[in-house]
């Protein structure tokens, strides 16, 4: 591992709120897990919830998380099959977690695929879980990553066997109910892809009730040699939710990881999206769209670790901001001295619909190899008046023109969702949100 993974210890605001939850979590499970949980809990107790003095969290005020006495979710309110059906983006295998716990009755994981709840996999002694859990998304990566390992309740595990292809994407619905009020909801997902395996995972985070809760989620993806994994992440939690998510893909030689993340939910949301390119000929694609309104804040921190030569990474994130909302984008690209012939491109474009909306965008390229092609670009702008006038002269005026131009802006990343049904579903979610944002 390169030294660049380590993060400056945060200034602790208040880790004690979580100590009881971590203590409870560490009372069951195999010894390796208990040890890992205890170490993670200790790590979190040491670093705590970051304050705005922490450079990584400068624009994203999460300190209030540390001063809230989060509880474990109460017994979950009932969720019906109809609730689930209305939210789905795909129609293949399905895993439903309610308030962080897998619910078999709502899920559909056929025996033909190697998927189960995380707790079931741990109980069954799944060796891959022991190998990877908390070892891909390290507890040292972010304070919340440590918190997740210390306190996670349940989750989903998917293994794609070498040489196989998942016929339909695995859809994972992370739902919260009224029972999540005041609670920490902490699911984890682990995906492993064997040599030349192919598959897609669609994760959604949805609040069924407008509760104040903290979703602290981690998704670990382990891509074997020449594997191909598409990861779709749709975060559309309620307007009062706190959402902190961390996705980490570890990529072996010649693997292909493509990520699409939509972030429209939460009062405050943060997504750390990391990929470690740990072999040659790796390809990493990260596409994202955030839409914010009212006083929402959406933060994306990506980190791409070019550890080996001859790899490509390509990242395009776009944002549309209304009202007094805020967005943060930080894109790190680390190119190690041996990672020659790296080709990395990063773009972040933002469209402000209001004078009071604000974006803090920062590319952060640290390049230690000399024969590389690395570019980045960030823009913050408004709707193009020339385009708007052009549309008007064609009879397309007012709000219709506005919608069309915003749609055109967002379309570039939406088209990167490879599965048509999922893409269509995401487009519907985006259209609905844009309608709401335009008032």
């Amino acid at each position, binding site marked *: 591992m390169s030294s660049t993974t380590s993060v400056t210890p945060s200034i602790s605001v208040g880790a004690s709120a979580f100590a009881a939850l971590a203590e409870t979590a560490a009372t069951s499970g195999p010894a390796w897990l208990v040890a890992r949980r205890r170490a993670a809990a200790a790590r979190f107790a040491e670093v705590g919830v970051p304050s705005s003095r922490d450079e990584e969290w400068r624009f994203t005020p999460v300190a209030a998380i540390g001063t809230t006495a989060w509880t474990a979710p109460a017994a979950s309110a009932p969720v019906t099959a109809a609730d689930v059906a209305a939210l789905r983006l795909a129609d293949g295998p399905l895993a439903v977690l309610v308030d962080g716990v897998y619910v078999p009755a709502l899920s559909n994981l056929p025996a033909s695929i190697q998927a189960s709840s995380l707790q079931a996999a741990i109980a069954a002694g799944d060796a891959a879980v022991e190998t990877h859990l908390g070892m891909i998304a390290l507890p040292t990566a972010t304070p919340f990553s440590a918190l997740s390992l210390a306190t996670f309740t349940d989750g989903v595990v998917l293994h794609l066997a070498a040489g196989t292809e998942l016929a339909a994407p695995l859809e994972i619905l992370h739902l919260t109910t009224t029972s999540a009020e005041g609670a920490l909801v902490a699911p984890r997902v682990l995906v492993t892809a064997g040599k030349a395996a192919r598959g897609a995972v669609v994760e959604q985070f949805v609040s069924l009730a407008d509760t104040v809760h903290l979703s602290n989620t981690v998704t670990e993806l382990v891509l074997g040699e020449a594997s191909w994994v598409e990861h779709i992440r749709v975060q559309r939690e309620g307007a009062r939710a706190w959402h902190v998510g961390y996705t980490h893909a570890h990529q072996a030689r010649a693997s292909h990881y493509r990520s699409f993340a939509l972030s429209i939910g939460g009062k405050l949301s943060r997504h750390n999206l990391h990929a470690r390119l740990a072999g040659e000929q790796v390809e990493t694609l990260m596409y994202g769209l955030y839409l914010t309104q009212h006083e929402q804040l959406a933060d994306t921190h990506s980190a791409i670790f070019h550890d080996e030569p001859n790899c490509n990474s390509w990242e395009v994130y776009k944002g549309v901001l209304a009202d007094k909302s805020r967005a943060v984008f930080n894109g790190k690209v680390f190119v190690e001295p041996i990672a020659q012939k790296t080709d990395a491109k990063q773009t972040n474009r933002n469209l402000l619909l209001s004078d009071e909306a604000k974006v803090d965008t920062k590319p952060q390229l640290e390049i230690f190899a000399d024969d590389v092609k690395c570019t980045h670009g960030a823009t913050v702008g408004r709707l193009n008046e020339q385009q708007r*006038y052009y549309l008007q*002269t064609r009879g397309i*005026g*007012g709000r219709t023109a506005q919608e069309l131009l915003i749609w*055109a802006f967002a*379309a570039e990343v939406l088209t990167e969702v490879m599965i048509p049904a999922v893409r269509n579903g995401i487009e519907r979610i985006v259209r609905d949100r844009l309608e709401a944002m335009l008032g």
Partner: protein
Amino acid sequence: MALLQITNLHASVDEKEILKGISLTVNAGEVHAIMGPNGSGKSTLAQVLSGHPAYDVTSGTATLEGEDLLDMEAEERAWAGVFLAFQYPVEIPGVTNAYFLRMAFNEVRKARGLDELDPMDFLDLLEEKLKVVEWGPEIMERAVNFGFSGGEKKRNEILQMAVLEPKLAILDETDSGLDIDALRIVADGVNKLRSPERAIILVTHYQRLLDYIVPDFVHVLAGGKIVKSGGKELAHELEAKGYEWLTGMPEGAAV
């Protein structure tokens, strides 16, 4: 009633007066060429008529079939039947030509109280319209003007005109930047769209376009005023003599 009636029109941009009293009558079925040197106000007149928000009309009137044009938003003018072919058509990445054209077509239909066409019916209509500019359907899947050559952009303007079927089409320097083949296609397209119900205003610096689209009337604009009007032969006279003999004329000499 005249289709377009402009009376003593004054317009400014950033408080600088560009149009200093334009009067012009255009009837249905007529083609008018507005010529003039750079900076004479030709393009400003085109933009003022189609409703560019940067221009302030300080006095005068412009009516379309008796309706006050200047009181309308740009899109309302499009609904009323005004079309501007841009000198520099605007690129809109992320929107296909097909989607854009159908949306424009349906917005205009809606405003006129007509039913919208669904995508299939619109495709049938489009097939006919594409012939006007000698194009195949492949252009429809490209983003609006995005990465188009200069010639393709101008053809796209004429295609839009064919689809929207305006009463009054204003072509702003449509010949600029075109090679001879593209000029021929664009001019042929415009000629196919000439009709007794439609008036066309050609704004151009050069007489070249007028060899292909023969106007009924030619007006020379200089210093924000029409300083001379005549028949198509006036264009040839300008070609021979240049603009200087006109721009030097005293104020108020306009016909």
